């Protein structure tokens, strides 16, 4: 049976009918069609599906869609646009923190949350926060440098 779900994604309001069993990741990707949120494992262990739900970091494959009722979601598509990139998006490109790009959306949102809360993180803070975002291409060193550079500028 389908249930109605109202939520805001990247400042746009959506009213949808969703299966109770569907995760927020499925709602975002399949229901709304925003595929920047990735699916690397479906069991909360890779971090590629990371989004911000009412400002909190969540792995969207671990949250049911209906749990987002009335809430507001930020996905990678809402972080910045090609014309108005977020400073982290620019820094990731400048510092070479993007290889295949599959982990990038999740990593960027995690980094954004970190800087929102702690504009001046140490490398330890970054390591502690990014530990849930796996990257097989191994961009960790460059991502650290990118995040530190944004922190320094602000």
């Amino acid at each position, binding site marked *: 049976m389908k249930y109605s779900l109202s939520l805001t994604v990247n400042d746009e309001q959506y009213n949808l009918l969703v299966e109770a069993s569907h995760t927020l990741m499925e709602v975002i*990707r399949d229901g709304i*069609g*925003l*595929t*920047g*949120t*990735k*699916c*690397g*494992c*479906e*069991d909360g*262990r*890779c971090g*590629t599906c990371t989004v911000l739900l009412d400002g909190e970091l969540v792995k969207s494959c671990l949250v049911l869609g209906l749990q987002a009722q009335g809430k507001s979601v930020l*996905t*990678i*598509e809402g*972080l*910045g*646009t*090609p014309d108005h*990139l977020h400073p982290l*998006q620019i820094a*990731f*490109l*400048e510092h*070479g923190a*993007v*290889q*295949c*790009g*599959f*982990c*990038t*959306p999740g990593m*960027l949102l995690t980094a954004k949350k970190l800087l929102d809360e702690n504009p001046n993180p140490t*490398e330890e803070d*970054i*390591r502690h926060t*990014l*530990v*849930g*975002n*796996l*990257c*097989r*291409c*191994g*961009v*960790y*060193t*460059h*991502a*650290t*440098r990118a995040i*530190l550079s944004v922190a320094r500028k602000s």
Partner: protein
Amino acid sequence: MKVVGTSPKRIDGIEKVTGAAQYTGDIVLPRMIFGKIKRSPLAHAKILSIDTRKAEQVPGVRAVITAADLPDVRLGVLTRDEYLLAHDTVRFVGEPIAAVAADTPEIAREACEQMTVEYEELPALFDPEEAIALDPPVVLHEDYEEYERLIELAEMDKRPPNLWQAYRIRHGDIDAAFHTAEAEGGFILENRYMTGYVHTTCMEPRAAVAQWGPDGTLTVWAGGQSPYIARDGLSRALGLPPSKVRVIVPFVGGAFGGKLTVHEGAIAAALAKKARRPVKVVLTREEEFTTTSARTPFIFSIKDAVSHDGVLLGRKILSIFWGGAYSGEGFLKPIFSTHLYPGSYRLPALWVDSYGVYTNRIAGGALRGYGCAESAWAVETQMDIIARTCHIDPVALRMKNLLTEGERTAITMPAHAFSAHECLTKCAEAIEWGTPSEQPGHPWYRGKGIALGNKYSFAPTAASVDVKVHEDNTYELRTSAVDLGQGAYTVLTQIVADEFGVEIERVKLVTPDTAITPFDHVAGSSRQTFHTGNATRLACADATRQMRQEAAPQLGVDPDKLDVSGGRIFVKENPARFIEVGDLFVVEMLAGKRPAAVEIFGKATWEVSASPHDPNTGQGEHPMAYMGHGAQAAEVEVNVETGQVRVLKFVSAIDVGKAMNPQGVEMQNFGGACMGIGIALHEEMCFDEKGRMTNSNLEAYKIPTIIEMPRSESMQSIIVEVPHQQGPYGAKGAGEIVVVPTSPALGNAVYDAIGVRIWDLPLTPEKIVKVWQAKQREGGSA
């Protein structure tokens, strides 16, 4: 203005940071449905019957297929030993048996569960050393002799029935080498090594979308390493002429060797045909682990003859590649793994026997370094042991035995662009080799380790590139080289920019699509900068030749007096005399004027031939395209109570001939270090006694997180540039050499810290504690 040699932002970067990049799993087509694969729960069994009736009745199911729905052909690159869907036998846990397409992935999964398969379980064989016997307890492929094979095995009296590859190197008098060592006070050192059971673990699981056109043309979207290998595989599996198959490569979320074949694409296609709808198949993480490219282990036995002062006299190696149920994507590993041995050191005698065997496990696959990362574990640990045995510094010992430029190696091929000295020297300097680590105190012990590596790039191979010149001074590059994350699109674009003397923004890229982009062999074997780079330069030259030709009458001079740059075709001796690119295209056909140029379209194919691999001697003048070199060093800290290893500092010095994009090289260096650290220290696929993988998720199979990496200021990337005479601008590839020395560098550092060796990768805490405790019992100390 030069773009080659600088580091512009990657040209596919904006899409990637904004979430706009479309990967295969993101594709949605009208009326598209979803496929799931029914797999074997047993490691070895006869299939007695498959009953699909209940599955077909599940509401929402649109198609069910088994082997009966497919052409009766075996697949496999050099040994055709595998069916897309099992016929009468399954040989590993996870082998595809049937598939379902349904309105949702959940329904398809449910229908797979509703299928009944009756098996007669057969005894399974997992141990490679048992498998290689002349009378093994189990024979996996009774019909092996009937299989189509495109490669010759080394001669032998009788082939062990589970053997699928045999390769030898024969050089010099190996017995004499051992005699000399013995007679003249030298050393004979014999050890056995094993590499770990690791997995590619791309963050993007394998996926495919298949759609049939009304004319019977199949289009498959699949994020793989080679659209043309994919096209040929689909054509064979489905019995279609190649021209009826179109493969489009969307963004790829990492490959590392794990995305060469497109079995799920062929399954999606067969389902789509039966369901008359587009079908998408996306593998789950568990399917990724249990059924796609694993770097299965090698077992190496090495026996070295060394003079008393550390000169290598001879090396004898027996290696067994622990293959799985099929030759799979590891089909050339027993051969290519041997390329490492002659690549760095002078070996008056080299004697190698290398075998690949079948066992009832997942097929051995490709993973960055294709055999060389494995042989380096054995060879470079052995070099460390030799140094310590002869009381010579490990760097000095290596230097003493290095080849020199132009010298014939133990497989005949001369060493060229031989940069091992420079890589080793710079790497040693950066890690402050010779300065002992500061000791933090028990239970932590620190040490440093270094290792050298080389990585061949295979041949024969070819790449074609097209370049279309647009009237608005824009240059369109059409290539089937795939960007898997390594930055190929950016590097190739940089080349086009320089060849036409324009800014990089003036280059447009058409990404791999077999309907549009020309042949390129594969995004593998570190070959794209080298081969596709050369093809790109030639295609640009072809285009500028046409531009000069077309401009000559307008400028009233011979074409060879003209040059092209920055959107102008100008007289070399008087650049003020020029026309613009747009002037070449003045088309006023309707006014009766002949256009200067209708189409300017540069085309080129770059081909590298090779001397054939002689499976009995391994000798050849030119058996590969080129050989790259690199050295890595690490400082580690080992806790002897918990067995934990922390990498404190890591240096990677690799020779790329010419750094086309220095930041890209650094990304390979650090990315390789990251993967290499995982492979060396903790990655390990585990199996139960029934051959089932027991850690098929990302928590239990642990790839490195940011925590496993040294802090960012302790990572150092060193670029060495010793140009290769055939490389574009002298360049060589960087993609694989960056993981070749990693495991031995770390293993040697662990030895330096605690004074004990571990012979089998990975260097897990349990093994470290165990060897440490054994050493304590024997009364040693660090």
